[in-house]
Structure formats: C-alpha cells, structure tokens
C-alpha cells in the first residue's frame, strides 16, 4: 500500500511541476508566438492586399466574435479614416481540412480588393491550385453584400476543375466574411475606433 502511495505521489508531483513550468512558459511566450505567426503567415497576404509594408498593418488588429467563432480583422487607416478591412475566416469542407482565407474589402465602395489563401492542406497540384492567381482574381471587384456561389450553382465563381471541394471551402469562408461585414459592420467600426485611440 505504501509503495503504491509513493508511486502515485511521485508521478503526480512530476506531472504537477511540468504543468506549472509549461503554463508559466506559455504566459511568457504566447504574445511573441502570436506576433511571429502574424508576421510570417498573415503579413505577406496583407502586403499583397493593401500594397503596404506588413509592419504598418499588423498592429492594426482587432478580433470580432460572431456565433461560435472569432475572426481576426486587420484595418487600413488613411489620414485618420478607416479605408479598408482585411478579415480572416476558415472555410470548412476542403479536401484536406479547413482552408483559411483572408479577404480585403474597400470600405467606401464595398468592393473586394482581393482574396488570399492563408493556410491549406489540399492535395499538391490539384486542390492547391486555389492559391493560383487565376482562381483568386475572380474575387477582385465583387461587391460584398450578397453571398457567393460556384457557377455550377448559379453563382459567380468558377470552380477549379477536379477540385470542387477545395473551391467550395474557399467560397464557404468568403460567405462567413460577407455575413460578418454585413451583420456586424457597426460593431467592427466601433471596435476599431476604440482600438486606434
């Protein structure tokens, strides 16, 4: 009995100590990790969307929650006015899991300035074609007030042949962003104002 007690105590102690160390380490590193992942993963996409250096844009970040999800939103300021938004969402239903996309919106004209793929694990050479500019450029200039569909369903986006699932996932992600911009516009604006002060 005493032996078993000793086993349990030693194991519990080791687990406890290691959990403490890790929690402390995470508290100290979490911010740094987020900055790094913003810089390397979202930075290039933001640069392409707004043609400004990522270092200017990355700090303009808020987070908005709708339903169960929380969406990172980056904004572009021009002489004190908000001119553009870049919203990230994760489109479900891809062939290799979710596809994370980012869409830039010109806030005055409601036009989409571009769509960027942040992260995907689609089959190389097939589903990975969602990254190609020939597919992505279809987004440019679309007005962000109605949900999008593939042309096969009477919509405006041509799917990549052989990769319907991947294309659908991107459209799913887009529709989340469309919904967010239309339903939560005032909330986004007030959050940005509070943040930029």
């Amino acid at each position, binding site marked *: 009995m005493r032996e078993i007690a000793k086993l349990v105590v030693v194991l519990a102690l080791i687990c406890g100590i*290691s*959990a403490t160390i*890790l929690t402390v380490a*995470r508290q100290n590193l979490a911010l740094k990790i987020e900055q790094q992942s913003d810089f390397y993963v979202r930075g290039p996409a933001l640069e392409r969307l707004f043609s400004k250096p990522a270092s200017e844009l990355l700090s303009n970040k808020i987070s908005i929650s709708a339903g169960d999800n929380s969406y990172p939103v980056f904004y572009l300021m021009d002489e004190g006015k908000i001119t553009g938004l870049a919203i990230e969402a994760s489109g479900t239903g891809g*062939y*290799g*899991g*979710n596809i994370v996309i980012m869409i830039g919106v010109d806030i005055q004209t409601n036009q989409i300035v571009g769509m960027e793929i942040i992260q995907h*694990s689609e*089959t190389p050479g*097939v*589903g990975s074609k969602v990254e190609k500019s020939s597919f992505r450029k279809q987004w440019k200039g679309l007005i962000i007030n109605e949900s999008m569909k593939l042309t096969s369903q009477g919509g405006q986006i041509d799917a990549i042949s*052989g*990769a319907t699932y991947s294309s659908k996932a991107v459209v799913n992600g887009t529709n989340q962003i469309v919904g967010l911009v239309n339903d939560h516009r005032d909330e986004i604006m007030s959050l940005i104002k509070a943040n930029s002060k």
Partner: protein
Amino acid sequence: MDLLLLAIGAIFVNNILLAQYLGNCPFCGVSKKLSTSIGMGVAVIFVTALASIFTWLVYYYILMPYDMVFLQTLAFILIIASLVQFVEIFLKKQSKALYNALGIYLPLITTNCAVMGIALLNIKQGFSFFEMIIFSVASAAGFALAIVLFAGLRERLMVSPVPQAMRGTAIALVTAGVMSLAFLGFYGMVQ
C-alpha cells in the same frame, strides 16, 4: 465515396511508412520474420484505432474548451502510454491467446511514432469523428501492409549474397526505398 477515397489515400498514396516516414524504428526492427511482422501490424492497427479515438475526444472536449491546446503533445503521449499499459493488463487477464500473440509488441508501440503521428495528423487535418476513425484505421492498415510486404522481401534478402558492409539495416533501408518508389506509382490515384 469520400470516405472510401480517404481510406485508399491513407493506405496507398500517403502510406504512413513509405511516404510520411513515420514508424521506421519498428519497421526495421521487427520485420525480419513474416510472422512477427503480422503480429506487429495487427497490434498497431488495434492500438492506433483506440489511441486516435481517445486523443481526438480529449482534444476536442477537454483541451479545446479549456484553452490548453499547448499541452497537446504532453496529453497525447500520456494517453498513448497509459492506453498501451491498460491494453496489456486487460489482454493478460481476458485473453491469454491474444496476449501471447500481441503482448510482446505492445511496449514497443509506446515509442512508435506512427501511433502518435496519426493522432497528431487527425487534429492537424481537422477531421470529423468518422473521418478520424476511417483515416486512423486506414493509415495503420497501410503500416501493416508495408511491414508485412517488407518482411516477405527481407526473408529473401537474408539468403542473398549482399556485400558485407550493406548487410542488415543498410540493405533494408535501400529495399524500403525501392518499395517507396513503387508506392509513388499510386500517386495521383486519388484526386
């Protein structure tokens, strides 16, 4: 249809051993005889299926809600290690025959990166519960297939005139490379 493609993809196209490089230690270690490799293959399928279910549930119902995703690695290895112990005790009590057949492979499985790797891939790919079960069983079956085929080749290699320096693991790895080349032929079969 999709689930079938997922399964075929996991067994042939992205074979866990020959395309994803996971589980090579037991691959070289216990593939000298056909009978032991079959035992190992079955044991891996069994443990992988159980481990994937447990780790998936723990990830989505404990780690995610309580914001402890960073403890993923620690949690998974503990689940796998205790699961293996538990299975060993259970088999010993309940089924002597099965224990005699699989028992000696179980401790080896704790440090088999295929099991842990499949558990991590399930999360990384964002699979649903059913997809997760299909994917893990199929991947483990792919492991079993590769190790059994390989053992067949290796039994022949034992009696072949291989240069002295290449004997053992060296020629085994080269053979595995040729097998992996053959499996590349399945590439493009799925989507």
